[in-house]
């Protein structure tokens, strides 16, 4: 690394329920971003012409989210015309990939100040509406594709996580998230969404269901049993012949929620920070991306975490807090089993099961949540990781400064 890459700020919208009756459904995805860009500029007194690039993750970059939204949002936010923008798609890792890419740009010395982040209005641009190989039978047959939910259930089956295990995890996520929201732990990052007249639209995460119980969750039907029985299980088990049958434990209650939201992370060099009077909140220590077995698909977090630790020359026990994206409960259970990290270090403020997973934005949101919590607890190192479609894993280690 030529230069250290610092995080100066991290903000996000609240996460709105990703349905037509969700509060952010009425907000254009470009507005979610330009609204945040406006706030980022204001709260850092940012001279925007010094920003080299805006890199945002978006998993369904078509329609309203198409056409290089980051640059267009910068224009509508009135940022300096010199600021460039690009949209990247690494499925669920997009938001964290944006942060990592920004860190790499800065660390390489080629750029000095980059806005990373992501956006996803899942209510307005539905998941999968951009098509892709998953809907291409030729490709599907070649690689033995099954949807993530089947992989998540397979992880549970192999790991021996039964329905009660995943539901118990989900209840914990809800309780922790509710406590964090009510305790104001998110307020440093969350920027309330308003309309153009400044009238309120949504001021805090609305997907959390604090009163979730085991009994309530038990009533929910498995989400992937139907498609599994119809043939998906057979495809998956062809890869995992030792597994007799897949136990379909995941339901809407223990999987990540469909929500709308956006997040931004301001990444830059020490010199850029000095020039602008910005105080670094964290340093990006190392980043990693990796590929894993694609049928089970969602086992990437542990390998990615180890890869990042190797790069940093660190060991697991040096990490004080972990944010492991709760795409499905089994993903986090598997990560814990693979690493042996104590539970009290993992997702201390809940995760996507309670808060929701705005696909392209989530990774960037994890960084903000992590830094806020490292600051609140006065801890040093944090690691964020997500499982990724196609069988990938991503990780980022940050150090509070």
């Amino acid at each position: 690394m030529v230069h250290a890459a610092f995080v100066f700020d991290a903000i996000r919208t609240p996460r709105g329920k990703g349905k037509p009756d969700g509060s952010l459904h009425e907000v254009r995805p470009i507005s979610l971003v330009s609204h945040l860009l406006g706030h980022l500029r204001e709260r850092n007194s940012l001279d925007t012409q010094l920003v080299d690039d805006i890199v945002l993750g978006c998993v369904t970059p078509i329609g309203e989210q198409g056409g290089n939204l980051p640059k267009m949002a910068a224009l509508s936010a009135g940022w300096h015309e010199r600021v460039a923008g690009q949209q990247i798609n690494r499925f669920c890792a997009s938001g964290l990939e944006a942060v990592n890419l920004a860190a790499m740009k800065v660390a390489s010395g080629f750029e000095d100040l980059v806005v990373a982040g992501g956006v996803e209005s899942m209510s307005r641009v539905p998941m999968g509406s951009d098509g892709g190989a998953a809907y291409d039978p030729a490709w599907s047959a070649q690689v033995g594709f099954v949807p993530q939910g089947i992989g998540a259930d397979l992880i549970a089956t192999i790991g021996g996580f039964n329905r009660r295990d995943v539901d118990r995890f989900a209840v914990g996520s809800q309780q922790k998230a509710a406590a964090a929201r009510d305790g104001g732990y998110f307020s440093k990052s969350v920027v309330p969404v308003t309309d153009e007249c400044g009238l309120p639209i949504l001021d805090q995460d609305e997907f959390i269901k604090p009163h979730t119980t085991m009994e309530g969750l038990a009533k929910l039907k498995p989400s992937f049993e139907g498609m599994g029985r119809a043939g998906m299980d057979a495809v998956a088990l062809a890869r995992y012949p030792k597994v007799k049958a897949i136990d379909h434990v995941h339901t809407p209650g223990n999987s990540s929620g469909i929500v709308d939201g956006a997040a931004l992370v301001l990444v830059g060099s020490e010199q850029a920070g000095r020039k602008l009077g910005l105080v670094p909140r964290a340093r990006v220590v190392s980043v990693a991306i990796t590929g894993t077995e694609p049928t089970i698909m969602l086992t990437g977090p542990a390998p990615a975490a180890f890869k990042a630790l190797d790069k940093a020359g660190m060991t697991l026990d040096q990490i004080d807090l972990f944010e492991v994206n709760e795409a499905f409960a089994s993903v986090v259970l598997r990560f814990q089993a693979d690493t042996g990290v104590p539970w009290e270090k993992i997702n201390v403020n809940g995760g996507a099961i309670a808060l929701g997973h705005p696909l392209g934005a989530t990774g960037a949101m994890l960084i903000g949540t992590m830094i806020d919590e490292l600051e609140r607890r006065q801890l040093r190192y944090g690691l964020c990781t997500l499982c990724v479609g196609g069988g990938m894993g991503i990780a980022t280690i940050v150090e509070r400064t």
Partner: protein
Amino acid sequence: MSGFKYEKGADNIVIVTMDMPGQPVNIMNAAYEAMMKATLARLESDIDSVAGIILTSGKNTFFAGGDLNALLAIEQDDRAGFFDQIERLKAQMRRLETFGKPVVAAINGTAMGAGLEIALACHHRIALDKPGIQLGLPEVTLGILPGCGGIVRLVRKIGLAQALRLLTEGTVLSAAAARSAGIVDDLAADADELFAKAKAWIQANPAACQPFDVKSYRIPGGTAAESANANLLLMAPAIAFKKTRGLMPAPAQILAVAAESTLVDVDTALRIESRGITKLVATPEAKNLIRTFFSSQYLTKCATDRARLVAQPAARAAVIGAGIMGGGIAYQSAFTGTPVIMKDIAQAGLDLGINEADKLLSRRVKNGQMSADKKAATLGAIEPTLEYGERFKSIDVLVEAVIENLAVKRAVLAEAERNIGISTIICSNTSTLPISELAQGLQRPQQFCGMHFFNPVHAMPLVEIIRGRQTSDDTINRAVAYALSLQKQPVVVNDCAGFFVNRLLFAYFAGFLRLVQDGADYEDVDRVMEQWGWPMGPAYLADVVGLDTMQHCYDVLSAAYPRCASTESKTWYQVIMELGGLGQKNGKGFYLHGAADGQPPKLVNPEAKARIAETAQPIRKFSDQEIVERIMVGMAIELAYALEEGIVASPEEADVALLYGVGFPSFRGGLARWMDFVGLDAFCRTADNYATWLGPLYRVTDRQRDMAAHVRTFYS
């Protein structure tokens, strides 16, 4: 608060009659909200036994629209409350259309704005097909947007492309045209048929709901995300910008709301629309457009009050002089139903006048606005003649429109007076000649007034009615009545050189001439004035009017208003005329004008520019502010003089006359309003500053200074 009149018949159909007490029309306000709330509550409790609902009006009109006075009162800080109110009103409409019972709007009169929005929230609309009944969403003309579901439901009913055409223009339609446009679903010849059809529809559709509340519903023509609309959405903002030059926020906001409304469910779309109107309602543009609307209503009232005093409306008219203006007046008279004799001294003149009328009528036929039969009948209502005759004895109003020359006009007027009946009034169409002077030599000067039409007559909405020293009130009233029958907006002014509009325009040009003298680039001046909102800048306008005409007006008016006269021996009009340029009419003026159809290219005339540079101060850069002030301040002071001299009776009349007569930017609310906006104190300080080095053009009136001292406004 009790609800609207509620009558349930033996057929279990409830007729809800909106008849808001204490006011001539139904409007959407707090009282409406309370009455609708009570009506909905009653329907709710009754709903099991209700077969269907007919919504109609107890007034002459169905529903007049939003409460503009209430809208005018909404300031920035009131927007949260306004948003909540709009959302409540819309929730009521949503309730009505989701009762699960068929709801029919029996549109028994004009339904404008919010009134049509109520009708759109019904499942079926039947309109009375009678002349004078109008339907439309004209909100854009008031700087706002249809915020009670009009955009959302119209787009879902007729598609994005069709809806945008109506919404961005604020088009108002007859019942039949609204039927063709797909806004109403059926027509009825009379009230009996209206209710019979409404009941029949309810019986045939017992489980009616809105098409968009059915899961399989698709918006006609597709959503904004579909490629079918790509070109529309790509172009529409640019087309709107070209029209408004980005000075009016409403059309762009309407486009944005309409497009976005197709991407979300109806309830979200309605909320997006509420946010759209909330954003517009407190803008100065909306305020000024609403105030301008009130002013123009006031003028209409002044005019109709006068017309009401006239015993007999003009049944026949005559026009003397079949030139551009005479031909245009004859056309307008025939087109609006008053047969007219058109007299000229030359057959060629008559042919020109008839050809002009023919051309205008053919265009209407081609655009499908008129049948060939109606065209023939209209042309037949213009009777060309070279001679006076007995028929002139029976005409009610004679308009003289010969060339702008005092002696010629006097002779023609005297001759005309000898050939008409004793009760006929004579109006002289003149733009500069004093009416009292033209009256000299007439036997019945009390039956004579000025009637200043603007060119082209069929398109320009204003007519100045000029009272000479001896003109009687009855003559003025009859001229006003005739102007109204011509579908023009008359404004009564007292006699002076240039009357009101050209007098003010003269002051406007005085500022321009001096600016160019002092080294301003006239292209720059035009750009700045257009950006301020004028349809065209002064140099371009001078070209369009014609430099010879400009010079003629200058000669006449500089004698009358020396404060506006140039200090130079020659005007820039003369300088360019010496180069052979007359403006647009011969293709050469401040600019070079292409002969092609449509908008001529705006190329500067290098010869003119070079010649001006020889005598003017060296070209230097003026700030936009200085350019605007030097032109508008002088003009505004002239307005103050005209008011003080009683040339024009009120700031309302002054402002509307400039809006309709010369295209004063409507979103600024008028020139007197502009002075109020600036504040008389600030205005006087600015003017005083210019007066010290530019002289009397910028010397404010004593009354203006007094107003400044007492913090008064023209409109208070």
